[in-house]
């Protein structure tokens, strides 16, 4: 049986496997370096507090890249990510575990395209980032 979703194997209401992520101080630093982002709230806890944040802040676009990974890991190498969108509702902080979950909300069998509704949440259920993605499945 194929490891990845196909038009035939996918139906509206299917859930994606949950993905958990967190970033420690070194990982946040690495992301700042890789994205050439010197914003102090991502590596200086005292400065993050001074700006009114609870702790060192996880970069918004890092969570964006977690989101695309959540989708592409599910869809597999032969699928194509067509579009993605998200809203940043609240910040995630250093060492905090977050969870991505998602559901197939529409399937266009003729085009082989699925629409996914996704949410990134804190462990207490608070929504950090509601999102959507559109993917062309691998057998199309």
């Amino acid at each position, binding site marked *: 049986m194929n490891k990845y979703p196909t038009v035939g194997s996918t139906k509206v209401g299917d859930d994606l496997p949950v993905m958990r*992520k967190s970033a420690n101080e070194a*990982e946040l630093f*690495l*992301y700042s*370096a*890789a*994205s*050439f*982002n*010197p*914003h*102090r*709230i991502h590596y*200086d806890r005292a*400065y993050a507090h001074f*700006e009114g944040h609870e702790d060192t802040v996880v970069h*918004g*676009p*890092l969570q*964006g*890249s*977690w989101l*695309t*990974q959540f989708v*592409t*890991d599910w869809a597999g*190498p*032969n699928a*194509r*990510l*067509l*579009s*993605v*969108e*998200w*809203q*940043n509702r609240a910040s995630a902080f250093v060492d905090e575990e977050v969870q991505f979950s998602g559901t197939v909300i529409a399937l266009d069998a003729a085009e082989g395209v699925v629409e996914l509704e996704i949410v990134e949440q804190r462990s207490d259920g608070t929504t950090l*980032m509601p999102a959507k993605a559109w993917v062309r499945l691998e057998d199309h």
Partner: protein
Amino acid sequence: MSSSLIPSESLARVGEVLAGPVTVPIDRREAQRYAYAVGDENPLYFDEKAAHAAGYRTITVPPLFITHALVLPKPANTLREDGLYEDTTSVQLEVSRMMFGGEEWDFIEPVCVGDEITATTRLADLDQKEGSKGPFVRLVRETTFVNQDEQVVARSRQIGIAR
């Protein structure tokens, strides 16, 4: 209706180019550093055979990497107290705080290592809305990414919320 948070000079800039065009080669090492930094070790970003098997010309890059590939190096003595660079492309608004509202992306053609990508950012939209906590401004910066063959490979819309 509360008074306008958007000066008329700023409103007149809708449609204007805020940044670019800037052209940057997609570098394997930078893209792989990015992939490791986000914890996405997809073989498509590291293994040429896997990329070929999946229909790509050569290894490809994490979808959102192109934004960061287009960040130009700047001298550290232009950093502000908060660690950010002076933003020469900011739009003047009568607000105290600008927050990231989210992003919207369309991926149109694959981006592979060795491509030359040209990005141009425009002020796509600027409007004032009434929220539960009072008036706010929604600012949309749209970036178009074009490759060396003049194909549009991606479009991003970054939404800023200011109040």
